[in-house]
Protein backbone atom coordinates (compact mmCIF):
# COMPACT_ATOMS: atom_id res chain seq x y z
CA UNK A 1 0.00 0.00 0.00
CA UNK A 2 1.11 3.54 -0.62
CA UNK A 3 2.89 4.86 2.46
CA UNK A 4 2.76 8.41 1.17
CA UNK A 5 -0.37 9.80 -0.45
CA UNK A 6 -0.70 12.88 -2.62
CA UNK A 7 -3.58 14.92 -3.91
CA UNK A 8 -4.75 16.08 -6.30
CA UNK A 9 -3.49 13.78 -9.02
CA UNK A 10 -3.42 16.73 -11.39
CA UNK A 11 -3.81 20.48 -10.95
CA UNK A 12 -4.14 23.35 -13.39
CA UNK A 13 -3.64 26.97 -12.37
CA UNK A 14 -3.19 30.24 -14.22
CA UNK A 15 0.09 32.07 -14.29
CA UNK A 16 0.45 34.19 -11.14
CA UNK A 17 -1.89 32.03 -9.02
CA UNK A 18 -0.88 29.95 -6.02
CA UNK A 19 -0.77 26.19 -6.51
CA UNK A 20 -1.33 24.00 -3.44
CA UNK A 21 -0.21 20.39 -3.49
CA UNK A 22 -1.10 18.06 -0.64
CA UNK A 23 0.65 15.11 0.95
CA UNK A 24 -0.10 12.80 3.87
CA UNK A 25 1.54 9.79 5.50
CA UNK A 26 0.82 7.11 8.07
CA UNK A 27 4.18 6.01 9.45
CA UNK A 28 5.00 8.10 12.51
CA UNK A 29 8.70 7.21 12.22
CA UNK A 30 9.01 9.36 9.10
CA UNK A 31 10.92 12.49 10.02
CA UNK A 32 12.22 13.94 6.78
CA UNK A 33 10.05 15.07 3.88
CA UNK A 34 11.59 16.15 0.57
CA UNK A 35 9.65 17.31 -2.45
CA UNK A 36 10.99 16.42 -5.87
CA UNK A 37 10.23 18.08 -9.19
CA UNK A 38 10.24 16.08 -12.40
CA UNK A 39 10.12 17.37 -15.97
CA UNK A 40 9.22 15.06 -18.86
CA UNK A 41 12.12 12.88 -19.95
CA UNK A 42 14.16 13.61 -16.84
CA UNK A 43 14.71 12.08 -13.43
CA UNK A 44 13.25 13.76 -10.36
CA UNK A 45 15.32 16.49 -8.71
CA UNK A 46 15.11 17.80 -5.16
CA UNK A 47 13.11 21.00 -4.94
CA UNK A 48 12.71 21.68 -1.21
CA UNK A 49 12.61 19.64 1.98
CA UNK A 50 11.55 19.85 5.61
CA UNK A 51 12.30 17.90 8.76
CA UNK A 52 9.72 17.01 11.37
CA UNK A 53 11.11 19.52 13.86
CA UNK A 54 9.87 22.40 11.70
CA UNK A 55 6.38 23.42 10.67
CA UNK A 56 7.35 25.61 7.75
CA UNK A 57 10.13 25.80 5.19
CA UNK A 58 10.39 28.53 2.60
CA UNK A 59 12.60 28.82 -0.47
CA UNK A 60 11.66 31.64 -2.79
CA UNK A 61 8.22 30.96 -4.25
CA UNK A 62 8.08 27.46 -2.73
CA UNK A 63 6.87 26.84 0.83
CA UNK A 64 6.22 23.62 2.71
CA UNK A 65 3.70 23.64 5.55
CA UNK A 66 3.93 20.67 7.91
CA UNK A 67 1.37 19.46 10.46
CA UNK A 68 2.96 16.68 12.49
CA UNK A 69 -0.14 15.94 14.54
CA UNK A 70 -2.26 15.34 11.45
CA UNK A 71 0.63 13.79 9.45
CA UNK A 72 0.01 16.17 6.59
CA UNK A 73 2.13 18.45 4.44
CA UNK A 74 1.42 20.87 1.67
CA UNK A 75 3.59 22.54 -0.93
CA UNK A 76 2.57 26.06 -1.89
CA UNK A 77 3.89 27.55 -5.11
CA UNK A 78 3.15 31.25 -5.21
CA UNK A 79 3.15 33.37 -8.38
CA UNK A 80 3.11 30.18 -10.45
CA UNK A 81 4.98 30.31 -13.76
CA UNK A 82 4.59 28.19 -16.89
CA UNK A 83 8.09 26.87 -16.21
CA UNK A 84 6.76 25.33 -12.98
CA UNK A 85 4.69 22.89 -15.03
CA UNK A 86 6.00 19.52 -13.92
CA UNK A 87 5.16 16.53 -11.76
CA UNK A 88 5.80 17.01 -8.05
CA UNK A 89 6.52 14.12 -5.74
CA UNK A 90 6.26 14.17 -1.97
CA UNK A 91 8.59 11.71 -0.25
CA UNK A 92 9.25 10.58 3.30
CA UNK A 93 12.05 8.83 5.10
CA UNK A 94 12.92 7.81 8.66
CA UNK A 95 16.28 8.22 10.33
CA UNK A 96 16.52 4.47 10.89
CA UNK A 97 15.52 3.53 7.33
CA UNK A 98 16.98 5.92 4.87
CA UNK A 99 15.28 4.75 1.68
CA UNK A 100 12.68 7.38 0.87
CA UNK A 101 9.15 6.37 -0.04
CA UNK A 102 7.37 8.45 -2.65
CA UNK A 103 3.81 9.44 -3.29
CA UNK A 104 2.06 8.99 -6.62
CA UNK A 105 2.77 12.57 -7.65
CA UNK A 106 0.81 15.66 -8.66
CA UNK A 107 1.02 16.83 -12.24
CA UNK A 108 0.93 20.63 -12.24
CA UNK A 109 0.08 22.64 -15.34
CA UNK A 110 0.46 26.41 -15.26
CA UNK A 111 -1.37 28.16 -18.06
CA UNK A 112 -0.04 31.51 -19.34
Amino acid at each position, binding site marked *: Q*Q*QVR*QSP*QSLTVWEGETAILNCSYEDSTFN*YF*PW*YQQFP*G*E*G*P*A*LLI*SISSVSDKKEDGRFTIFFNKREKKLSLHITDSQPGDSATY*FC*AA*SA*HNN*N*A*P*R*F*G*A*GTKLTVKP
Partner: protein
Amino acid sequence: EAAVTQSPRNKVTVTGGNVTLSCRQTNSHNYMYWYRQDTGHGLRLIHYSYGAGNLQIGDVPDGYKATRTTQEDFFLLLELASPSQTSLYFCASSAPGGVTLYFGAGTRLSVL
Protein backbone atom coordinates in the same frame (compact mmCIF):
# COMPACT_ATOMS: atom_id res chain seq x y z
CA GLU B 1 28.14 16.14 -16.44
CA ALA B 2 25.61 13.55 -15.26
CA ALA B 3 26.64 12.04 -11.94
CA VAL B 4 24.22 9.10 -12.17
CA THR B 5 24.26 7.34 -15.52
CA GLN B 6 21.81 4.63 -16.49
CA SER B 7 22.07 2.27 -19.42
CA PRO B 8 20.44 1.42 -21.65
CA ARG B 9 18.02 4.34 -21.96
CA ASN B 10 15.49 2.17 -23.74
CA LYS B 11 15.07 -1.59 -23.84
CA VAL B 12 12.56 -3.91 -25.46
CA THR B 13 12.44 -7.58 -24.57
CA VAL B 14 10.04 -10.47 -24.76
CA THR B 15 8.23 -12.27 -22.00
CA GLY B 16 10.63 -14.68 -20.30
CA GLY B 17 13.71 -12.81 -21.45
CA ASN B 18 16.69 -11.74 -19.34
CA VAL B 19 17.35 -8.06 -18.80
CA THR B 20 20.07 -6.22 -16.91
CA LEU B 21 19.74 -2.53 -16.17
CA SER B 22 22.94 -0.74 -15.23
CA CYS B 23 23.61 2.26 -13.07
CA ARG B 24 26.88 4.04 -12.34
CA GLN B 25 27.33 7.01 -10.03
CA THR B 26 30.33 9.29 -9.70
CA ASN B 27 29.08 11.12 -6.59
CA SER B 28 31.15 8.97 -4.20
CA HIS B 29 27.86 8.09 -2.50
CA ASN B 30 27.43 5.00 -0.40
CA TYR B 31 23.70 4.55 -0.92
CA MET B 32 22.09 3.56 -4.21
CA TYR B 33 18.46 2.80 -5.08
CA TRP B 34 16.31 1.31 -7.81
CA TYR B 35 12.76 2.64 -8.28
CA ARG B 36 10.13 1.98 -10.87
CA GLN B 37 7.76 4.73 -11.98
CA ASP B 38 4.23 3.93 -13.12
CA THR B 39 1.27 6.22 -13.65
CA GLY B 40 -0.92 6.25 -10.59
CA HIS B 41 1.77 4.73 -8.39
CA GLY B 42 4.57 7.24 -8.54
CA LEU B 43 8.00 5.92 -7.63
CA ARG B 44 8.11 2.55 -5.92
CA LEU B 45 11.23 1.20 -4.26
CA ILE B 46 12.51 -2.10 -5.66
CA HIS B 47 15.92 -2.62 -4.02
CA TYR B 48 18.59 -0.48 -2.44
CA SER B 49 22.11 -0.77 -1.14
CA TYR B 50 24.25 0.80 1.56
CA GLY B 51 27.53 -0.08 -0.12
CA ALA B 52 29.41 -2.61 -2.21
CA GLY B 53 28.11 -6.11 -1.54
CA ASN B 54 25.15 -4.87 0.52
CA LEU B 55 21.55 -5.35 -0.62
CA GLN B 56 18.29 -4.29 0.96
CA ILE B 57 14.81 -5.32 -0.13
CA GLY B 58 12.39 -2.59 -1.06
CA ASP B 59 8.63 -2.57 -1.33
CA VAL B 60 8.13 -4.22 -4.74
CA PRO B 61 11.01 -6.73 -5.03
CA ASP B 62 9.19 -9.67 -6.66
CA GLY B 63 10.73 -10.62 -9.98
CA TYR B 64 13.82 -8.48 -9.46
CA LYS B 65 17.35 -9.17 -8.29
CA ALA B 66 20.02 -6.58 -7.68
CA THR B 67 23.78 -6.62 -7.32
CA ARG B 68 26.09 -3.90 -6.04
CA THR B 69 29.50 -4.80 -7.37
CA THR B 70 31.38 -1.63 -6.42
CA GLN B 71 30.59 1.66 -4.74
CA GLU B 72 29.89 3.08 -8.20
CA ASP B 73 27.90 0.29 -9.86
CA PHE B 74 24.43 -1.04 -9.10
CA PHE B 75 22.62 -3.48 -11.37
CA LEU B 76 18.98 -4.54 -11.59
CA LEU B 77 18.31 -8.00 -13.02
CA LEU B 78 15.08 -9.31 -14.45
CA GLU B 79 15.67 -13.01 -15.09
CA LEU B 80 12.22 -13.93 -16.42
CA ALA B 81 10.73 -10.67 -17.60
CA SER B 82 6.97 -10.31 -17.57
CA PRO B 83 4.70 -7.66 -19.16
CA SER B 84 3.90 -6.35 -15.65
CA GLN B 85 7.51 -5.20 -15.46
CA THR B 86 7.03 -2.79 -18.34
CA SER B 87 7.90 0.49 -16.66
CA LEU B 88 10.25 3.44 -16.35
CA TYR B 89 13.14 2.55 -14.05
CA PHE B 90 15.18 5.06 -12.11
CA CYS B 91 18.44 4.64 -10.28
CA ALA B 92 19.49 7.11 -7.60
CA SER B 93 22.34 7.66 -5.19
CA SER B 94 22.69 9.49 -1.91
CA ALA B 95 25.10 10.13 0.89
CA PRO B 96 24.52 8.22 4.16
CA GLY B 97 21.30 9.44 5.71
CA GLY B 98 19.63 9.68 2.31
CA VAL B 99 18.98 13.39 2.69
CA THR B 100 19.05 14.11 -1.02
CA LEU B 101 18.67 11.57 -3.80
CA TYR B 102 20.34 12.20 -7.14
CA PHE B 103 18.54 10.45 -9.96
CA GLY B 104 19.63 9.18 -13.32
CA ALA B 105 17.67 9.93 -16.48
CA GLY B 106 15.83 6.61 -16.39
CA THR B 107 15.54 3.44 -18.46
CA ARG B 108 12.30 2.75 -20.25
CA LEU B 109 11.69 -1.00 -20.42
CA SER B 110 9.02 -2.68 -22.52
CA VAL B 111 8.28 -6.37 -22.08
CA LEU B 112 6.24 -7.71 -24.98
